[in-house]
Every structure is written in structure tokens, then in C-alpha cells.
């Protein structure tokens, strides 16, 4: 399977720079997911790999050979478009077999492949329908089937699940994960949904404003975000950020702010001491905060519960830490009174530290 590499990739529309030098190497058979907020350049990157957009500067290589001057059809890629891009005048079977028919594959082979793909995607009963006569989810599957039947080395997906309802999205997500295990191909997947990214990816690439912020396995990114943006982007509900200053209490390095104080791990304490700026933003995930009857001297958050959102086994409490918003995720059977200041605590190694100015992780 091919190894795709992006080298200092730049895209400019007129004077407007959309991508500022993207560097990335995608390993064999890897499921790479690009995530980022709307307009950060995910689709642009994908379309440049596909050959649908020109490359302003930099290079894209497949197995070491530059492909930027190749036609899309010579790149050995199959793509699933965000809006499906089915051929409206062809029925499902014809849509899926279009590439094979262009290659003049034998009729029997086409038929057998179409039936096999339709079988795996549950489209057997719809082969003679036109795209206009299908539901969104069915069209989605046709678009995926059209890519699958091609048997090309790399699959590109541009937000393929964004138009589906929550239930169908979950189902299709599982099917895609299964498909990746089964076919073992390179997959490059664009989404702005971080849950999709976390569940599907071997490697997540977080993009923001035309830059790659960080890339790595979901665990790496979740546990060791390299900056405040990545920390805030991954995880639901999102990480809490509180501003504070570095102080020393009884010889322990702590960060203190309005309504909270946390001791930091030794390792981070050392880093903090070397750091010039003492203005810090701490980050704590809602699930890492726990209620404590006693006030802990070295790790305490004084929170006032404002709203409790019940979401099943877990509940999310929206609270105020002095004036800043903090959310806490708890087991639903733990019922806490509202509008009273309560004490919460967090483990030192679960507290992330960021430079308040540069927003880079410490």
C-alpha cells in the first residue's frame, strides 16, 4: 500500500493563504483523520491530495514520487465526497460500476463486484434505483460503495457522515471502522466531529488556521495535547481552562487562581521553574474533577453548581469557579446541592499547564 507524504504544502487563493506549509507522513494502512474547525483547510488538503486543487508550493509524494503534476485519475485514489457526488442519471449499480466500465472490465466481473459491494453495504435491494430515489443514508453508502469497488490504494473521505442523523452516523462509523480492518488500505478522513476522529483514527491530525497543530494517536493527543487549542478541541465536554499564577506553598510548586489551587507534578514543577512567564492557564477535563467532602490543601476547586445536566449514567454539572465557568462530569447517582460552594479536587498529573500568552503546553 502506498505511503503518502505531504512536504511543506502551501495553498493560496489569490493573496489569501489557506495552508501554511503542511508536513505529514502517512504510514502504510493507516487511518488518518484530519480534524479542525470549519474553514481551517481540511478539505483543501484532501482535494490537493486528490488532484482537484492545484498545489501552490510544496510537494505531495506517493512512495517517494511526486504526484502533483498527475491527473486525478492517475493517482490511484478513490474519494467519498461530502455531498456524495453521485451521478444523478445513473442507477446505483451504474454509479458504483462507473470506474470499472470506463476501464472496460469484463461484464461478468463488474456484475460480481457490484453484487459483492452491495451485499456488504446492504444495498442489494436498491441497485436499480436512481440516487434521487434513495434516502441520505443510502446515498451515503452508495458513495462509499463506489469508492470501495475501485480497489485503489488510498481512500479519501470528506466529512462523509456529516449529513446523517446521530443514530445512522454511529452505525456508519462502526461500519467504516470494520471496513478499515477488513480492507486494510490507507484511509484519509476529514471531519470536524472530534468523536468521529477519536473513534476511527490510528492517527489524528489536528488543524487550525491552515497549520497542523499536532498529530499522533488519539491517546497521545488526548493525554498530552501540545497546546491549548488541541486540548480544548478534543474531548467532550471540552476541557476547562482557568487562569492562575505560579506560587510556592510549603516548598511545593502550585498554581493558584480565583477559587482554586493545584499542586503540579514534580516534572512539570521543574519545567515551570525554568519558564520565564509565571502567568499560567491550567486545563482540567470535566471527568478528572471529583467531589471531596474535605477541602484539600494542595488541590482544591471551590465550585458553585449552577445547572445539572442529566445525560444517563453520567451527569454534567455546569458550575462557577468564582466567575469562570467550569464543567464537571460525575456519576449520576452522586447528587450535589445547587448554589452552594463545594470542594472538588483533581490529581496532579491530570492537570495540564499552558503558557497563558503563547498557549503552548508546559
Amino acid at each position, binding site marked *: 500500500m502506498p505511503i503518502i507524504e505531504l512536504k511543506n504544502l502551501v495553498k493560496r487563493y489569490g493573496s489569501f493563504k489557506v495552508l501554511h506549509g503542511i508536513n505529514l507522513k502517512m504510514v502504510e494502512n493507516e487511518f488518518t483523520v484530519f480534524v479542525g474547525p470549519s474553514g481551517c483547510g481540511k478539505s483543501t488538503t484532501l482535494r490537493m491530495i*486528490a*488532484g*482537484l486543487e492545484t498545489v501552490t508550493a510544496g510537494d505531495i509524494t506517493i512512495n517517494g514520487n511526486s504526484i502533483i503534476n498527475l*491527473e*486525478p*485519475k492517475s493517482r490511484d*485514489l*478513490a*474519494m467519498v*465526497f*461530502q*455531498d*456524495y*457526488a*453521485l*451521478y*444523478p*442519471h445513473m442507477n446505483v449499480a451504474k454509479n458504483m460500476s*462507473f*470506474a470499472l466500465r*470506463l*476501464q472496460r472490465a469484463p461484464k461478468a466481473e463488474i456484475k460480481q463486484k457490484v453484487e459483492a459491494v452491495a451485499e456488504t453495504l446492504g444495498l442489494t435491494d436498491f441497485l436499480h434505483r*436512481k440516487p*434521487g*430515489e*434513495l*434516502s*441520505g443514508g443510502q446515498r451515503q453508502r452508495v458513495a462509499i460503495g*463506489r469508492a470501495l469497488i*475501485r480497489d485503489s490504494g488510498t481512500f479519501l473521505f470528506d466529512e462523509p457522515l456529516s449529513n446523517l442523523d446521530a443514530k445512522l452516523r454511529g452505525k456508519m462509523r462502526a461500519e467504516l471502522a470494520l471496513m478499515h480492518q477488513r480492507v486494510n488500505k490507507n484511509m484519509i478522513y476529514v471531519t470536524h466531529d472530534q468523536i468521529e476522529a477519536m473513534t476511527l483514527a490510528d492517527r489524528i491530525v489536528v488543524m487550525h488556521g491552515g497549520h497542523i497543530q499536532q498529530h499522533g494517536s488519539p491517546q497521545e493527543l488526548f493525554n498530552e495535547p501540545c497546546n491549548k487549542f488541541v486540548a480544548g478541541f478534543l474531548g467532550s465536554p471540552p476541557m476547562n481552562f482557568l487562569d492562575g499564577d505560579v506560587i510556592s506553598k510549603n516548598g511545593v510548586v502550585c498554581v493558584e487562581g480565583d477559587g482554586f489551587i493545584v499542586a503540579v507534578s514534580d516534572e512539570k514543577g521543574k519545567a515551570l521553574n525554568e519558564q520565564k512567564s509565571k502567568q499560567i492557564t491550567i486545563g482540567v477535563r470535566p471527568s478528572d474533577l471529583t467531589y471531596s467532602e474535605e477541602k484539600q490543601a494542595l488541590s482544591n476547586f471551590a465550585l458553585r453548581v449552577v445547572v445539572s445536566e442529566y445525560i444517563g449514567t453520567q451527569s454534567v454539572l455546569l458550575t462557577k469557579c468564582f466567575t469562570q465557568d467550569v464543567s464537571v462530569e460525575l456519576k449520576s447517582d452522586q447528587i450535589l446541592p445547587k448554589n452552594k460552594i463545594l470542594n472538588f479536587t483533581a490529581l496532579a498529573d491530570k492537570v495540564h499547564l499552558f503558557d497563558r500568552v503563547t498557549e503552548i503546553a508546559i
Partner: protein
Amino acid sequence: MDVVKKINKFTPYMLLAPAGIILLLALLYPIGYMVYASFLDWSPSQHIGQAEFIGLRNYINLWNDAAFFESFGVTLKFAFFVVVLEMIIGVGLALLLDREIRGMSVLRVIFILPMMIAPIVVGLMWRYMYHPTVGVFNRTLKEWGFESIPWLSDSGWAFYGVIIADVWQWTPFIFILALAAMQGLPRSALEAAELDGAGEWQKIVHIKLPLMLPVLIITLLLRLIDAFKVLEVVLIMTNGGPGLSTEILALRIFRTAQEFQELGYSAAMSNILLILLMLLTIAMFVYNKIQENRASKMCAMIEKG
């Protein structure tokens, strides 16, 4: 209560009635007049009341009129040739010019200019260009050392001369409609086709043309209807000659009334033409209805999910 309801129901129709009646009169009166006239032996010097009622004799005469049939044949041949040529050239140009190049919008405007010129002027222009000695075509041929061509004075060439002029004037019509249809094509489906391995030509054959087909069919029918009625350009260029070689039906009708002074007979001819055009129009409506039905069926399917 009931009365109020009834009044409410009829109010819109009452308000529409004056316009409707005027429209009906304006449409039906002349047509009725023409149909009635086709049963008369009527010369322009007579008041219509003085004309003799001769029943179907005009139509029977038409049936035995070789010149009418020749004219009818010329019209069919003319309409067929011009519409086929215009469709091919118009759609072809649209396919070629549907891209983002600087100056393309100016080029597109230039392409549709011929359509905006009055047919009389087009006829005169081409007559001068076809002039046997001073016309631009023959002068050029002479300069290059070729024989000059009897553009409008030879019965074979004259037919092609008229076709060329009509193609020149009306190809832009098809061009702009095809271009509009093309710009409405789903971009991403074309991109998908590119990734599926389709070259330019395959994209045209497998994606662009099939998706443009509904618009193209309507365009074709509109052009066909128009081609059957063409008059001025031919009148100016050849006046139907040499012989009957370019005497299209509209021209024959015009001359029957004007030169031969047989108003009833020309009305009968007009009616034949009218019926022919009506059939084409009905074909167009039927096609539209079928398309609409299909579209609404699709919508219903989607809603059912």
C-alpha cells in the same frame, strides 16, 4: 356563512376574468378568423362578408398542389438541417467555452451578438456577402485563385446559403441555453468522474450530455418551432428562388396572399403549419410533464426516506 364562502371562492376568478377574456379574444379571434377564412374563396379586394364559402375546397386543392408539397419538403429539410447543425455547433461551443479563462465573459457576449440583430438586417448582410462579384466570399475565393460560387443563383447552393445564414444567426441561442445548463451541472459529480478515471471526452459523453438532456430537448423543440416559421431572412436573400429551391412554407403563404391574392388558400396553408407547430408544442408540454412527474416522484421518495 355559505354565501360568504362561495363569494370568497369566486373572487379570484372574478378578478382574473377581464384579463382572461381579453387574452382569449386576442388569441382566439385571429385564429378563428384564419380558420374561417380557410373555407372561403377570398381576394383582398373583397370584404370578408362578400367572399364565397367553398367548404373544404382550399384543403382539397392543397392536397393536389405539387408546389405546396415541394415547399413543405423544403421547409422540413431546412428545419432539419439548421436545427441539427445549430445543436451540434451550439452545444459543442458551449462545451469548449465552459471554463474560467480571462476574457471568457467578453467572448461569450460576442458569441450571442448575431441573435440580437434584426432578421431583415441579417438577410441583407448575407445577401451582400453572397454577392456573386463584390461579395466577400467570392472575392476571397478569387484572391486565393478558386472559382467563384453561385451562392444564391444556383438552386443547390442557394439552399445551403440560406442554411448557413440561419445557423449563423441562431446557433448562439442554443449556445447560451447549453452554457446555462452546463453551469448548473453538479461540480462534484464531475470531480468524482475525474477520480473515477474519466477523461474530458468521457466526462462529456457519460456525465455532461446526459445531465443536460432535458434542457437540450426543450431547446431543440423551441428551435424547431422557430425554424418552421422562418421568413424574413429567406425573403430578403432569395425570395424563395431560384425556382422553388428555398421557398419555405412561410414564404409560400406570404406570396400566396400577397402576389396571388388568394387569402383563403393561404389561410388553409397557415392552418396546416399551425397544426404542425401545435403538435411540436404539445410534444414539448408532454415531455415537460413527464419530467415534472418524475421529479415529484423522486421528491416523494426522498421524503418517505
